């Protein structure tokens, strides 16, 4: 064996050990990341899954014309403002005649959500022949009842409910008249002070309109800026200065953009507060650097040989860009745009500044209606004292995360799909 071979053999063991060590670092880093992810998801899903179902109580309700105080069926006004709560109260009193005195009665009435009355109203509007009849219905329970029903036996001792209320619920449970049903209102309602009535639909549509405005503004502006800077702009001190500033903007804290929106868009131009248009403009300012930077990288990645080929054939600058550079750079641009949009979707701070943090019950019908967005809704609910909002917060986070995952999957899919090889 020659001397070199001997030396090589000696060093081999050391090299392999270094390799193994490096591999171990990598695996442990990924393991740590995965662990954090699993912890996050278990925590959120563990807390949030119960919010997708809510408690209903089976009651026999009599649509009593006197209690409802309706004299004319065709009068919309009367139907809208009739005393549906009274009907429910009657049913509750009927069920538990033992409740006496103001205090106990109030406790009894608070078993059923204030939203249950609206359900009766809708039923009666649909079918006026119900008047005077007795109907067995599942009525939405109050959020405290909901928490009590969902919690385990040991936790029930800590409930906010009074002993009377507990015994009523337990007697209903014994009769199999308490049930968990799919939480329809979570996906159809706007925000509410009552957790059992609160939904994320208002925030989802608000987010949708905001994202729409952001996308419509930031993608064309970003791509146009990138193409100009990359293909047409002369290379001089001024364009260098612009480039430095774009890179700087990407690192500016987003709340600054919110302040800018408040001062300029709302203050100077007089656009209304809390509307998705203003939110979209502010988020456009925030996402533009991301889109410009990634679009420029995508344009740079187009091989110069393709440009030369087109130019050698006599294509004008514009034709080279439109026919060759843009189609080849588009997957990269789209990926950048979607990642920028995903960032914007999760952005809270700048929207607080422009008033999208207001308590808005109505689901917005357009980008000029006051609304809130998903991350701000999460922030609002996380701040609310009612115990049910804990689960709702986690449920909203789950919805937001699934939107983000969907968007990022779309980005990967688009990139794979549109990518052309050469």
């Amino acid at each position, binding site marked *: 064996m020659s001397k070199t071979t001997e030396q090589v053999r000696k060093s081999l063991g050391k090299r392999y050990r270094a390799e193994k060590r490096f591999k171990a670092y990598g695996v442990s880093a990924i393991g740590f990341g995965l662990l954090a992810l699993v912890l996050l998801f278990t925590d959120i899903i563990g807390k949030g899954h119960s919010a997708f179902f809510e408690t209903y109580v089976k009651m026999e309700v009599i649509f009593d014309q006197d209690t409802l105080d309706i004299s004319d069926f065709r009068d919309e006004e009367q139907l809208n403002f009739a005393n549906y709560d009274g009907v429910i109260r009657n049913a509750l009193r009927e069920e538990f005649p033992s409740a006496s005195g103001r205090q106990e009665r109030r406790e009894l009435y608070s078993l059923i959500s204030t939203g249950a009355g609206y359900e009766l109203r809708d039923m009666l509007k649909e079918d006026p022949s119900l008047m005077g009849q007795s109907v067995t219905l599942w009525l939405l329970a109050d959020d405290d009842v909901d928490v009590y029903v969902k919690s385990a036996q040991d936790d029930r001792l800590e409930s906010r409910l009074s002993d009377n209320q507990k015994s009523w619920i337990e007697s209903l449970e014994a009769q199999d008249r308490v049930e968990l049903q799919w939480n329809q209102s979570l996906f159809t309602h706007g925000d509410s002070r009552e957790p059992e009535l609160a939904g994320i639909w208002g925030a989802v549509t608000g987010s949708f309109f905001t994202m729409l405005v952001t996308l419509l503004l930031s993608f064309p502006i970003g791509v146009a800026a990138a193409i100009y800077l990359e293909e047409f702009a*002369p*290379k001089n001190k001024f364009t260098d200065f612009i480039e430095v500033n774009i890179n700087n903007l990407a690192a500016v804290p987003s709340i600054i953009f919110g302040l800018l929106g408040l001062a300029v868009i709302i203050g100077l131009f007089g656009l209304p507060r809390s509307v998705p248009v203003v939110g979209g403009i502010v988020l456009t300012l925030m996402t533009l650097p991301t889109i410009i930077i990634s679009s420029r990288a995508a344009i740079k990645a187009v*091989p110069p*040989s*393709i*440009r*030369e*080929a*087109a*130019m*050698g*054939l*006599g*294509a*004008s600058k514009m*034709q080279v860009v439109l*026919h*060759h550079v843009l189609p*080849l750079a588009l997957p990269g641009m789209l990926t950048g745009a979607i990642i920028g949009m995903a960032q914007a979707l999760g952005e809270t701070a700048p929207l607080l500044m422009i008033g999208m943090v207001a308590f808005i019950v109505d689901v917005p019908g357009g980008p000029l209606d006051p609304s809130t967005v998903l991350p701000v809704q999460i922030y609002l609910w996380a701040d609310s004292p009612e115990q049910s909002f804990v689960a709702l917060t986690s449920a909203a986070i789950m919805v937001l995360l699934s939107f983000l995952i969907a968007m990022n999957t779309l980005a990967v899919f688009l990139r794979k799909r549109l990518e*052309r*090889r*050469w």
Partner: protein
Amino acid sequence: MDTAEKFDDKAPGNAKLADQIEGEQAMDETIRYPDQTVGTPYVDNPKMRMRDVEVFYGEKQAIHGVSLDIGKNEVVALIGPSGCGKSTFLRCLNRMNDTIDICQVKGNLHLEDQDLYDPKLDVVELRARVGMVFQKPNPFPKSIYDNVAYGPRIHGLANKKYDLDEIVETSLQKAGLWNEVKDRLHSPGTGLSGGQQQRLCIARTIAVSPEVVLMDEPCSALDPIATAKIEELIAELSQSYTIAIVTHSMQQAARVSNRTAYFHLGRLVEMNDTDTVFTKPEHDLTEAYITGRFG
């Protein structure tokens, strides 16, 4: 192979050669930097006429006062060591150097009566008359048909689908590619082999019926069989087109060209009939190069 690399190479085998060249340099500056072009760079009724061409990359001068003619329907080969400026010179002929910001071209360059650097000249029109084939095959990531049809389309050469089909077919036939691709015109051009891709690029170039075709080392990325095919093609094309070809291979220059220009360090050293250049070179540098003493 890079010139600098070659000269800096102090590997034992090359030391002697390097010394020899350095010695030459010390002995006779005029040989290293010839002021006068020897041979016959000019012809009667040239297709392209270049006089005192100087090219600068920023401060650095890449071409020093090159004057030569390219005759109608002739194949002119530009040879010389790497970095001698032959590609730079070729790219002046259809103003591809315009894309490089710091590049500056001086001198008189004419295509027939047209001044190439006339500020009123539209470079798009010029490039339709002077086409170019590049070193690396660079088909567009589109179908074979669209690759060839692209030039005619942007210049509006064919109004009907039928006319376009015909242009595509004749161009591919001239490029000797028709029989190989006629059944898959709509599959991507990037899926062809290297040699086929280069012939596709040639078909794409001649689809706009240019008067002059510039070729920048068109075979350097190809194997010998593909190279032979391209060389055959050049011979055929020279019947209808004027061709200027930059090549690293002296054999190739000898095989395909009518006249050969030898460039050295940005200067045109010698230009003569190809036979003369390779059998009785007039200049010492040319002889040194073609006999392989450096390169």
